[in-house]
């Protein structure tokens, strides 16, 4: 004999403190257990892909900043790679090294944000969030030195970056990397051994490998299940083939594994940046305007380039009809695709884990809705 209960449907969002933007879920509960979830998105849709059809190739860089606004540098990088592939541009080596450094810094920043907000969703009242945001501020300061903006960077240009790093950037970067390592140590001491974090995240929202691969999930979510898939390693772009780094894997595929993989990857990014600093060579940071003019007119055709973004494979598909603007741009945004398994992760779980799981996917609504 069991007591019969009736499920209740609750609307969460789009205005909710933990939806990482504007996201809406219609959730059906049976007590504290989630019976059904219906994600509703599109509240942040700005039509970036359509807008791109009206912009020149250089102008689109500013649009990519605003897709995943916590990792604009990586968005820039993916887009620029696609443009270079489409127009056959040979990038300047120093520009490539600089954009790799910027991209890895952005990856650290993005992982810090993801970790901080995951712990905020765990209910840690902002303390770990503010600690990780504090470190992110240092990275943003570095970005400001590089390109004069903190979030909407638009630093990259076809063929490299628009301006070489200033002299004071390099010592600041050295100091910043040491600080980051120290702060990640702190964060790990604070939380990785924390029993409450353990018990809240371990074993929740477990996803099988096959499901992840079939749903074409990428990034830390996939690596947390033990699939060794990192585009920096599998399909090296820029100069990642000259860098040796460890891929951090976890096999549990639960919320803790995703958190763990992100923290370790941030640590590994510091190594990558150090190698970049060692290998960077002097020279121009972008090709001359004779080689790459401001108004690029790529030949008719299409190109797809993907990088290992902070949230997974971030790809840009560009179609050119020979004009100054792309005929069509499509973004393979990992946030949207990683979101497709939301139901599989949530149903059968507890209400208290809903937003933790949601946070462990590391979504950015700007990228989901574009």
């Amino acid at each position, binding site marked *: 004999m069991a007591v019969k209960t009736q499920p209740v449907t609750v609307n969460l969002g789009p205005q909710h403190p933990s939806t990482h933007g504007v996201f809406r879920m219609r959730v059906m509960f049976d007590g504290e257990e989630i019976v059904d979830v219906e994600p509703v998105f599109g509240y942040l849709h700005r039509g970036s892909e359509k807008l791109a059809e009206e912009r020149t190739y250089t102008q689109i860089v500013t649009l990519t900043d605003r897709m995943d606004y916590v990792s604009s540098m990586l968005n820039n990088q993916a887009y620029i790679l696609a443009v270079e592939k489409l127009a056959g541009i040979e990038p300047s080596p120093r520009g490539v090294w600089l954009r790799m450094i910027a991209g890895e810094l952005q990856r650290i920043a993005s992982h810090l944000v993801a970790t901080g907000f995951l712990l905020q969703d765990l209910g840690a009242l902002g303390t770990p969030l503010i600690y990780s945001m504090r470190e992110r501020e240092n990275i943003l300061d570095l970005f400001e030195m590089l390109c004069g903006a903190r979030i909407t960077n*638009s630093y990259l240009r076809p063929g490299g970056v628009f301006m070489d790093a200033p002299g004071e950037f390099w010592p600041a970067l050295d100091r910043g990397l040491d600080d980051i390592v120290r702060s990640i140590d702190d964060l790990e001491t*604070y939380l990785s051994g924390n*029993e409450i974090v353990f018990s809240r995240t371990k074993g929740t929202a477990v996803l099988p490998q096959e499901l992840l691969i079939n749903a074409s999930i990428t990034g830390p979510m996939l690596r947390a299940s033990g699939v060794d898939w990192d585009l920096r390693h599998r399909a090296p772009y820029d100069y990642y083939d000259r860098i040796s780094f460890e891929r951090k894997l976890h096999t549990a595929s639960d919320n803790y594994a995703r958190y763990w993989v992100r923290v370790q990857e941030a640590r590994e990014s510091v190594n990558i940046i150090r190698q970049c600093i060692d290998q960077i060579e002097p020279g121009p940071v972008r090709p001359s305007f004779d080689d790459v003019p401001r108004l690029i007119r790529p030949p008719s055709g299409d190109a797809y380039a993907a990088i290992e973004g902070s949230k997974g494979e971030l790809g840009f598909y560009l179609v050119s009809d020979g004009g100054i603007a792309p005929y069509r741009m499509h973004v393979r945004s990992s946030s949207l695709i990683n979101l497709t398994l939301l139901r599989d992760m949530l149903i059968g779980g507890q209400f208290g884990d809903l937003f933790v799981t949601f946070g462990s996917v590391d979504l950015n609504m700007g990228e989901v809705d574009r």
Partner: protein
Amino acid sequence: MIGLGLPRGFLITLKNFVRPPVTEQYPDRHVGLLGAAKEAGMNPVHFLFKRPGDSIKAIAGLATVPVAVTQSSRFRGNEFTFYEDRCTACASCAKYCPLGIIEIASVPGQIDAQEGESYKLEVFDIDIGRCMFCGLCVEACPYDALHMGTDFERSKYVRDELVITKEELFAAPKRPSAFYRPQFEEKRFDPFQETIDDYHNAGRHERPSDEELKRKWVDER
């Protein structure tokens, strides 16, 4: 290590508790007695006896000192810096603006064509309300007439007031940002401390001396 995670977390928060805060206060910073004395350029004891009123205020936590926000010289602020004398009204900036918010209208200049024809700006409006400070206009400017500014305190209650006109641009203090202007960095120009009022100094090259100009333009002919 089950059981020791929580105490270690407590130690970390306590460590941060005794650390000085990282917040930068704005627009002014609350200071204690020591800070107020430092601001006044006296030693604290001297300050205490010389200016008792201010000292009491400082001890009560009411004394404030203005804060100079430290930013990179490449900071892309609003309040563009514009040198009309350098502008040829080529409208590159307007063409490269992804949002088309720069409005330019020009008329042929009154100067004799022999001495170098140029166009005169009639209208030069930037709609800051829609600007996203990407800096593409500055990048496009071939004569270094338009620079990003370094100011960021331009909030208005009415949207229309966010349009900066040519006159406003010209009257604003000339604190150009080093964004896409490596010459400023080479000169170690600090936009937060000094201004560049002479348009000759804002270009990519040093202003040539009078002799050089004479040699180039008069003697050669």
